[in-house]
């Protein structure tokens, strides 16, 4: 090809990057655990890091696309039960039995709800990653319906969020975002994009015997 433009080149590179990252993730999943901490610990770290790089790449690409046009979520009807169960399965794999992963599906949780599945999955995976980094022994993924909001939550038994993070997310003010903060800012944006009849979605953070991450989707 003679007319291979830089945009095509860039697209091809990103395509390759995603392929390799996907392969790396799948390859790491296939390395067996040995029970020897000297082997298993760094392997766990590598898995978590790989997931984290994957998440950051998806966020970066999504924001890049968003720069080119308005931010519109792809809202459709999905089962929140399926979503939570898939996230729990992912959390279990990532936790490698170091944590208990539980789900709590409230009776109020509707069989079908409206949201952008990919974006919500990204936000929730981010919260799960945080909990995997800070929890002592337990992560709970929850879903319920309250006051016409679909509420999706990740709860852990860590020391909870630092006070300044709670304050700035509650006030909606920006703060120097790094690590955890980056993911939270992204999650807040995703929640807000889930607008329905004038009501935006919200991100709530709280400390209650650990960190509580909640997406409230109207």
């Amino acid at each position, binding site marked *: 090809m003679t007319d291979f433009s830089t945009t095509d080149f860039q697209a091809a590179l990103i395509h390759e990057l995603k392929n390799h990252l996907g392969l790396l993730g799948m390859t790491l999943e296939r390395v067996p655990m040995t029970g020897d901490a000297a082997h298993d610990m760094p392997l766990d770290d590598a898995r978590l890091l790989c997931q984290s790089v994957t998440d950051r790449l998806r966020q970066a690409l999504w924001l890049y*696309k968003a720069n080119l046009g308005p931010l519109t979520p792809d809202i459709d009807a999905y089962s929140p039960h399926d979503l939570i169960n898939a996230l729990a399965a992912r959390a279990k794999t990532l936790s490698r039995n170091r944590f208990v992963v539980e789900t709590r599906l409230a009776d109020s949780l509707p069989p079908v709800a409206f949201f952008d599945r990919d974006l919500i999955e990204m936000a929730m995976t981010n919260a799960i990653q945080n909990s995997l980094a800070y929890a002592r022994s337990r992560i709970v993924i929850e879903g319920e319906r309250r006051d016409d909001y679909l509420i999706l939550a990740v709860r852990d038994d860590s020391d909870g969020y630092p006070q300044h993070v709670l304050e700035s997310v509650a006030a909606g003010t920006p703060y120097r975002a790094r690590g955890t903060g980056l993911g939270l800012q992204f999650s807040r944006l995703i929640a807000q994009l889930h607008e329905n009849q004038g009501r935006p979605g919200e991100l709530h953070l709280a400390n209650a015997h650990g960190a509580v991450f909640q997406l409230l989707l109207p």
Partner: protein
Amino acid sequence: MSVPFETSARGPIDYAALRALVVDDYPGMRNALRLTLSNFGINKVQVASNAAEALFQIRNKDYDFILCDFNLGEGRDGQQLLEELRHGNLISLDTVFMMVTAESYYEKVVATAELAPDDYMIKPFSAEVLRSRLESILLRKRAFREAYRLFAAHDLEGALAACDTLIREQPRYVVDALRFKGELLVTLGRFDEAEALYKQVIEMRAIPWARLGLARALHLQQKDDAAETELHDVLDRAPEMVAAYDLLSDVCAAKKDTAGAQAALERGVAISGRTVRRQQKLGEIAYANGDLGAARTAYATAIDKGRHSIFVSAEDYGNLCRVQAEQGDYKAVADTLKQNRSTLQASPEGRLVTAVTQGVLHVQAGRQEDAAKAIEEASALRAAGTRGDARLMLDLAGVCMSSGRNDEADSIVSEVARNAHDSEALLAKARKLYDEAGRADVGASVLSSATADVRRLNNEGVVLAQKGDFRTAAEKLLVACEAAPYNPRIAMNAVWVILKHIDTSGMDEPMIEAARHYLDAAERQAPGHPRLSGLRLSLKEMEGRYGIKRKTA
């Protein structure tokens, strides 16, 4: 065709029985996906590295699950493969087709309602999410099995009833069932009910497919202003929703706003230019608007992007050559023929396009002997039953006239006019041909006598039908059909009158056979015409009433 891999209506999914095909151009990914699937218990996994391989395997073996990368390197992409599979009925509704894509906006930009995969995965993805999505599709297909079975057996009423049962009894599938039901209602021609259904979904949430469905239902009821308002609002919120531009173009065309129709398609093409049919449609509209530059670009792109698509036909090459010739760029015409020689020579339709176009070139360059040879070639193909589209036939008539072969020209024009007696654009083009040849008077008489017969028979049939004499009306219209075998309007009128005749006077075997034949012909000539689904349904209803089992094709 396929034996469902899993017959129990309840219980866990039996992954060991699932036959899977992984399509990816990247060997490392094929192996990784195969290993991932085997972790789920899916051991019957085959792989293909491109669309051609996948097609070969799918033709020879049934699969329950196809996991396909959108980007397949050279050749067809994943979406073109899916289009070909759906178009050729190579996979049933029971087969799970999942697209793997690197683009988070694949769904809005590439997939269209009628050619959507069951689900898609954005790369890179985890095994757990893949498994969860697959499981949820398999369970959904299990819930929809009865609705799909009835749909495949053309029992649309039964499929509707099955949807209603799902809506009542399975809250998990309410929205999916409403979506399928909306499509069934449109197919059945029950547009007002479809409109109400989409409004019901929008009441729950204004999701894009429901809004597009509403706009389509409005358009099909000629409520085009309301449809246009809805579509503009959808596009204000989500300007990358390309399917909305396609529909907006149809709505504008229905309102005789041809400039708006072209503008809508141009916006759609700017976002996603890969769809062959969008380019073809843009070419048609731009050509009709006299915008030769835009028409040329669109036709050329359709051919270029559609090199591996089943939707590109000889007609596309003819269209491109015609535009190039009308621009006076005869060198480009010759180049188009030369570059696509092997494709064109492979079919009689392609050879006809080549012969006619070469005829045009020879006439233009004053090579009378060569032009005569081209006409001979075209005549031989026509004598063997090969037909081109109406414009190509008028081109041929033009070449004949320029070579002094007026009788042949008149007979070709007459055939075109009979089959397009109500197409002002084609009749005008034919008239122009005669004007340029200084034979305006002859042209007027050829056209009026060709269209008069068909028009007279058609009108007589319609009047008789209005008077309730359906039998004689049907006989008149069948004569009209014989005179104009490629005229969809006449064919649909004939089918309608025959069905009325049987409805009032009882079964008439030869007549219903004729109705079947001409309904098929009308579907070939005017695919997607709004009258067709209603006629198809009435025919089926009539066959059902008299206990006729239609021979399966």
